[in-house]
């Protein structure tokens, strides 16, 4: 049992981070505004969680300009995809 729980990734404990990872798993990329609308969050709240996931190298961001407006786009990294998949498997195993 202890072993199964160990597979749960602490980085994905919060519901917000689960949401961010879920969005990026099924979309090639998503910009800040899109994620914000989907998760119904405030700027600051979302930014801190994105930063944390970025710090673990699970997601990466690229900044660009659309016209004059800055636009931050997020994509999942290979490491992020693998880690999230392992987390999903661990969740599924736990409820089985």
């Amino acid at each position, binding site marked *: 049992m202890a072993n199964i729980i160990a597979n749960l990734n602490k980085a994905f404990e919060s*519901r917000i981070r*689960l*949401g961010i*990872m*879920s*969005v990026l*798993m*099924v*979309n090639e990329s*998503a910009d800040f505004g*899109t994620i914000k*609308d*989907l*998760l*119904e969050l405030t700027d600051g709240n979302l930014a801190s969680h994105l930063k944390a996931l970025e710090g673990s190298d699970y997601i990466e961001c690229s900044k660009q300009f659309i016209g004059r407006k800055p636009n931050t786009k997020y994509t999942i990294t290979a490491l992020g995809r693998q880690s999230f998949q392992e987390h*999903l498997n661990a*969740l*599924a195993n*736990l*409820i089985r």
Partner: protein
Amino acid sequence: MEKQLEDLKAIREMMEKSSKFLSLSGLSGVMAGITAILGAAYAYFFILGEHIAVAKILLILDAIIVLFISISFGIYFSWKKARKSNQKLFNKVTLRILYNLSIPLFVGGILSGIFISRGEMEIVASITLIFYGLALVNASKYTIDEIHYLGITEIILGLAAAIFLYNGIIFWTIGFGVCHIIYGLIMYKKYDLK
């Protein structure tokens, strides 16, 4: 245990919500179907007796009016559903769907126009059904599964309409009328009544 189950549910919901257009209302389908049947009935009883030159223009007008009314109802019901579930109607996914729908639809529309201008009206029912079906299949990966099967159904009806060339209006009425109503009701029951 409870938390893990909730987590998994939330993950699945967010994956669907972020990659699929779920505000499509079954009622849009039902209204589109009714409009199509009325349009086809008008064409059958009032237009087909006219001289070919007049009939051509009236048929195109008839089709445009049917299309306009169907799309208006579609947007209206989807907008209502999106508002009810607190979502935006126009987002990245909506644009992706519209783009995927539009390519086959434009090609089918232009091809129909070419045949109509040559006076070969018989084949138009088949072309509109086939390209509409292809458009639905193409866009269905971004929305609910029923759209995929509706698309396949339209394609089969379109091919049948090409075989029974002079009964095009019957297949057209089944495809755009009856099928929309049936699939619309199925979707309404499955997704909207929840």
